[in-house]
């Protein structure tokens, strides 16, 4: 018996020794670094060490799944992949101006219905083909046929013609003032590459499945990165496209890896071990604070075009009453929510517009609600529910994937209770929230959502937030019918920018008064970023491109492996 027990003990000892052996054999990146955080591009130092291409890899974790097909993707992570793999006709800079890209120049007819686009010459797709006007026409046809994701931006294009190899003419159904702005989302795919990967039979007749299945894990674009490997539910590994027309900096990342968002503790470990360069933007403030303590890590804080909104159901009691809605708007302590020490979104700025400050068309002179319980009581007294507001409980949904938004719900619940309004807060998966918005009966009174523009102009958020065509989506849960349609359409069809922006301003003030949405704050997005050996332009900016994907343009990032070793 004793011998047996000795052997058992020996077994345990061997197991422990085995683990120790594992620890010796495994690579041991240093968890701490002596590099000081840098707020400017990291200076490269000459080094005798030769680095492998994988040393020039940067990693980003994001919400999943990620679709890199421009006719399918629509979410934040999709747009990062789409923008890095595909080039659009025009590019959106971090100061939110439009820059010629695949389209070198353009002309608009006097009635605003015909747009002639002149394409850049010598642009290569990842398969080696040269970009031609026919690829642009094909990409539009594909958008129209599939109709998913951001395809709705191009529904207004009635016809597209290739005038010659490098000239395309778009004819619009109706004049659309910000048409050029929508082209930041017009990504061009290679017709030949797509057509050689279609699967037949499929839902699109002779085009089979339009290569939708193949494009889940491959690409047909001409962007600075090409998909090297994509594992569904796990990661997309993009590789630098050497023949990209815009050229390369020697310290630009060779590989750009996006992978599925893990738990906060895992993120902390990866950052400390320098296996992750940029985190996602959805972590709790406490997580970012903890990450900031890691040497060489900085928290980037910038306005990105998102605003935190509480959308109110305008045809369901008690939020069908404008005074009741305003009473709710006065119950929120906007400044406390953005307080730099105790707020849920430190550094964010209370909203004054339906659009954030960095979105073109923003008007700083509009009146917005402030925290004022006396005014809330006055408004409530004018509502038809004044006699017994507690008898009409207000339903409030927020997404469990964004845990910090719960604090906004609890604050509103507590303050509203002081004036007799009862709010029932429900936490649920965002997928279920989307499902709930599809009918007025299942839509809650208050729907918490972070709103982002689809194209870089105020008209995008106004249209998606209040036009009846968007009713029943997460962008528009008001169920207020078509009362705003004419004004929105009039503003969007105005070709002169100054005149259009004036119409936006008037409309936005009316929307503020209508109080269909409580605009809580212009969100300052946070991301933990390595700065000791890695540079990302967004880390130094207060404001970046307002359309998702553009701020994380890997081509403009820099990595210095010799610094990483220190």
């Amino acid at each position, binding site marked *: 018996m004793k011998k047996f027990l000795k052997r058992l003990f020996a077994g345990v000892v061997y197991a422990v020794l085995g683990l120790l052996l594992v*620890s010796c054999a495994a690579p041991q990146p240093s968890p701490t670094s002596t590099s000081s955080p840098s707020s400017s591009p990291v200076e490269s130092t000459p080094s005798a060490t030769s680095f492998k291409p994988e040393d020039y890899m940067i990693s980003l974790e994001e919400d999943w*799944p990620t679709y890199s097909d421009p006719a399918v993707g629509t979410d934040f992570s999709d747009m990062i992949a789409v923008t890095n793999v595909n080039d659009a006709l025009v590019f959106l800079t971090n100061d939110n101006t439009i820059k010629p890209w695949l389209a070198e120049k353009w002309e608009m007819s006097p009635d605003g219905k015909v747009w002639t686009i002149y394409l850049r010459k010598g642009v290569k797709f990842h398969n080696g083909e040269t970009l031609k006007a026919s690829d642009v026409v094909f990409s539009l046809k594909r958008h129209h046929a599939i109709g998913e994701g951001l395809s709705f931006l191009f529904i207004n294009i009635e016809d597209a013609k290739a005038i010659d190899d490098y000239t395309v003419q778009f004819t619009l159904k109706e004049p659309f003032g910000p048409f050029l702005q929508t082209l930041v989302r017009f990504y061009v795919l290679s017709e030949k590459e797509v057509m050689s990967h279609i699967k037949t039979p499929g839902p699109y007749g002779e085009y089979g499945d339009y290569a939708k299945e193949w494009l889940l894990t491959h690409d047909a674009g001409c962007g600075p990165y090409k998909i090297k490997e994509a594992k569904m539910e796990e990661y997309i590994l993009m590789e630098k496209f050497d023949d990209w027309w815009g050229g390369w900096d020697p310290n630009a990342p060779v590989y750009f890896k996006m992978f599925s968002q893990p738990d906060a503790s*895992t993120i902390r470990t990866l950052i400390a071990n320098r296996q992750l360069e940029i985190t996602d933007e959805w972590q709790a403030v406490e997580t970012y604070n903890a990450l900031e303590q890691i040497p060489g890590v900085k928290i980037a804080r910038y306005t990105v075009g998102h605003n935190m909104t509480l959308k109110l159901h305008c045809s369901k009691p008690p939020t069908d009453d404008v005074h009741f809605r305003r009473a709710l708007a006065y119950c929120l302590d906007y400044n406390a929510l953005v307080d730099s020490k105790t707020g849920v979104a430190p550094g964010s700025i209370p909203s004054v517009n339906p659009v954030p400050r960095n979105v073109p068309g923003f008007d700083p002179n509009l009146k917005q609600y402030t925290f004022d319980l006396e005014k809330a009581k006055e408004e409530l007294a004018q509502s038809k529910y004044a006699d017994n507001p507690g008898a009409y409980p207000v339903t409030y949904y927020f997404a469990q994937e964004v845990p910090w938004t719960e604090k906004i719900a609890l604050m509103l619940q507590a303050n509203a209770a002081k004036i007799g309004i009862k709010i029932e807060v429900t936490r649920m998966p965002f997928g279920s929230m989307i499902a709930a918005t599809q009918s007025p009966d299942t839509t809650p009174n208050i729907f918490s959502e972070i709103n982002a523009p689809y194209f870089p102009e105020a008209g995008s958020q106004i249209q998606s937030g209040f036009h009846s065509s968007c009713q029943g989506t997460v962008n528009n849960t008001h169920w207020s019918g078509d009362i705003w349609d004419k004004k929105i359409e009039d503003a969007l069809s105005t070709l002169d920018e100054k005149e259009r922006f004036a119409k936006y301003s008037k409309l936005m003030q009316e929307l503020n008064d209508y109080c269909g949405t409580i605009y809580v704050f212009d969100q300052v997005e946070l991301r933990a970023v390595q700065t000791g050996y890695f540079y990302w332009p967004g880390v130094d900016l207060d404001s970046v491109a307002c359309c998702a994907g553009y701020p994380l343009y890997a081509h403009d990032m820099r990595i210095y492996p010799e610094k990483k070793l220190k």
Partner: protein
Amino acid sequence: MNLGPFILRRLALAVLVLFGLSMLIFVIARVIPGDPARMALGPRAPEYAIESLRKQMNLDKPIYEQYYFWLRDFVTKGDLGFSLLTRRPVMEDIKEFLPATLELVIVSAIFMATFGILLGVLAARFRDTWIDSLFRVIAYLGIATPSFVWLVLFILLFGYVWPILPAVGRVSKGIPLPPHITGMVTLDALLTGNWRTFWDTFLHLIMPGIALAMGGLSQAARITRSSMTDHMDKEYITLLTAYGVPGKIIFMKYLLKNSLIPTVSILALDIAALFANAFIVEMVVSYPGLSNYGMKAILNKDLNAIVGVIMVLGIIYTSVTIIIDIIVAYLDPRIRLVKRAS
């Protein structure tokens, strides 16, 4: 020994259970409010695209017809439908993700069985000593603490404070993946003699594997200990000792073998349950397994994927239960005799 009728009866029951499960999960997944087609195609998808997807998924038909088509395709073609999340057939997803979970569960099961029995035997041998008390505390902690908490602790300890093990994914940067044979990258690397990849992928399995095993391991240790101490007090052990049978033979041949019957039953069920418990563990480390896929499917109302994952887990669980019943019936004839009599 005639096990045939017993096995046939168990198989028939399993088919009934799976049929019931498929109906139940199919209905539950579909009665949740919301149009999955609209959710999948984005907020502003035109009606024609939504209608086309509804038709493709039979969502425009009554629920009993939907179930009929689903069951027909599953039984005749092995087709579980189309996933709205990954935009490809659910069966393809399962083929990709199941091997990852399978290898995690295998590693976890090895930890669970080895250390569970080992700790139980030691606790029984040193009954009522400080060793027994120490193992009891460890076992209680193991049972009471959820596996994801263990994993977070392990990540902080062995990924951050003492970074000896990889914290995320299945394979490290720069390590080539082996050719696809079974889909289990560790096994595939082993089969192709790719030792570097084998070692790297094995390291990735250690933390989630142990974290996942902790509950079952602790339970196995407690059951082994209590079963062994019960048997130690039995007369046949006293008799064997009185006959002068060496202690080692009594321990290995009589005590351990008899005491392991309840442990084996529980262990097998725990191993089957690992597939379900892997849900959160896989999410913590972004492990691309079936459970992670299932969790995302549930959060995104991916109807066919939800049904597919639950059915696969149901089949695994039912199969394991049958295998255990057969093993236990083989080891202990009283069980099948009782069942036959009843």
